[in-house]
């Protein structure tokens, strides 16, 4: 029962591995006219599902932050902790794979004027800030309130990131799934779907395991405090 989170995460990781393999070997190649670096386009099968998983994690971070801040729920704080770590992991996967793809396709790994790139990177940096910042502070209501506030305000970037390519398409391409243009080949869509499901399972497992770990950490701290009080 207690290892369910890790088991789910392992299942998701296996799915992510399968996605990677299918994307690199099985998925059809794209038209040489549509892309400058058609082979690099295969990064898409890792890049898009990791972005999806990161957005899920940022959503969970928002929920955890809100419920801690307004309801003082212990589970919500654990969700905040676990989802910020999950958001950092998947956010870095997405940014890193995007830089590689960008370097091949655009000739530059980054564009400081592209709103989608920058707001997404900012969300990843926010996760990094929350993870490192929390480790630098003793646990307590002040620490939790401050980081929960950052988690809540940071979520403003999520809708910005989502609509960025629709309103201000600068360099990052617009949506390719569920659009009226319907430009995605069915085999490509299948691999992408497997990727999205796998990364969703991975992120859920990661968050479950993270929440359990945080619970154990807090319990350990309580036991340490009790031991110190009793030995006085």
């Amino acid at each position: 029962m207690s290892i369910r989170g890790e088991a789910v995460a392992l299942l998701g990781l296996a799915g992510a591995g399968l996605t990677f393999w299918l994307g690199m070997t099985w998925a059809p190649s794209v038209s040489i006219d549509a892309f400058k670096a058609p082979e690099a386009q295969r990064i898409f099968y890792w890049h898009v599902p990791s972005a999806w998983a990161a957005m899920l994690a940022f959503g969970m971070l928002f929920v955890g932050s809100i419920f801690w801040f307004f309801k003082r729920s212990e589970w919500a704080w654990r969700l905040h902790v676990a989802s910020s770590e999950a958001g950092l992991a998947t956010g870095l996967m997405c940014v890193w794979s995007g830089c590689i793809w960008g370097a091949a396709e655009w000739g530059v790994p980054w564009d400081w004027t592209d709103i989608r790139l920058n707001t997404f990177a900012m969300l990843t940096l926010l996760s990094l800030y929350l993870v490192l910042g929390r480790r630098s502070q003793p646990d307590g209501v002040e620490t939790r309130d401050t980081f929960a506030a950052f988690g809540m305000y940071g979520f403003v970037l999520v809708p910005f990131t989502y609509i960025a390519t629709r309103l201000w398409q600068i360099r990052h391409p617009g949506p390719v799934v569920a659009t009226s243009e319907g430009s995605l080949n069915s085999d490509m869509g299948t691999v992408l779907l497997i990727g999205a499901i796998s990364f969703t399972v991975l992120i859920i497992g990661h968050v479950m395991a993270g929440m359990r770990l945080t619970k154990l950490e807090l319990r350990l701290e309580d036991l340490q405090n009790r031991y110190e009080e009793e030995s006085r």
Partner: protein
Amino acid sequence: MGIIELSKVTVRRGRSQVLDSWSVSIDSGEVVCLSGDNGCGKSTVIETAAGLVSMEKGSSEISGQLIRDSEGRRGRTKFGLCLQDDCIMGDELVGERILDAAGCDFDVSSLLKTWGLGHRIHDRVAMLSGGQRRRVAILSGLVPAMVSSEPVAILLDEPDSGLDDDSVEQLAQTLRDLAAGGHAILVASHNSKIIESADRVIQFPFTETKGDPVKGKFSLLESGVLRKTNIGHRMNLRTLSGVANNGIAGLLTLGAMLAMLNPEQLEGRTLTAFILAPALTAGLCGNSIHRLTLENRAYAWWNTISAIPPNALFHSLITCGAITVLASTVTGDFDVKLIAAGAVLGACTEAIVGLLSHATLRLSRPNAVMVRLLTPILILPWALVVDTLSV
């Protein structure tokens, strides 16, 4: 209703609950002393009353004005405050600090003389001994009542720490004198002389005894016109910290770019970016006054005076504008629009970084969080301005 009113406050600090639905009311002309072991919650009561601590439940009111409640509502009114930390920046001047605390002009030199600080009136607080600095902090807490004929609340947290016996006696007598003037005083202390000067003593956890102090005699200090503090700009002029931090960073950026690039060969977007980059770097260094307020927890005291953190935003506009002028001169492309953009971009960036840092002040180790991890987002608006202006 009392001058100081804490209503059913529940406060958590760290992982423990310090106050649980606790109330206290202090009337005009009353001195209430909080006493008890270290860590029992005396400072929490003082800081909650001053609105410095967020509460789970309840509210704090002073002179009928809501100071803070559990819904996050904040308000401010005139009251005196002396915390356990001195809460004074080292570069503040002794006389100036007392006037800032009073909020109006008055004969500060005679007051300082009675407290043995007359000869230090023009000195920076950093030059004083620990005991002298403590006396300045105490006077900052007491002076709003000394210059007011209306009842004013005074909150003092262990004011006697670091004071000699004579000074403690003088403090106890002053508390009685202020009470005679109708002011309401809440003081946390272990000192027997301070405890003896109280009308009520609340021994934590919450047994209350009545005192029988001698009566004091209040004499009002004649005050003049109201005083504007402008503490950020004053401190910046005195310390030049804006130039030393933000300005130098901007100049170094310009120097580094000049070492790598030939400005005469730049054009279009690259030229605009070259001119605006030093202002961005200067802004990314953050609010230089914020760093000064971290000394002795001065930000907490200033937070009770104004909702806007001490800043030198007008000076930042000048500094960032001057750096942009310099970058423009180097390139030979002198455009007023670009210079104005550099000044505004730099100042806005500085203000945002300052606000991000300010948001972490509740943490027990605000210096340990890497708030600068969040600053790359500020490159986006800069890059968009560069794109727009280079068209």
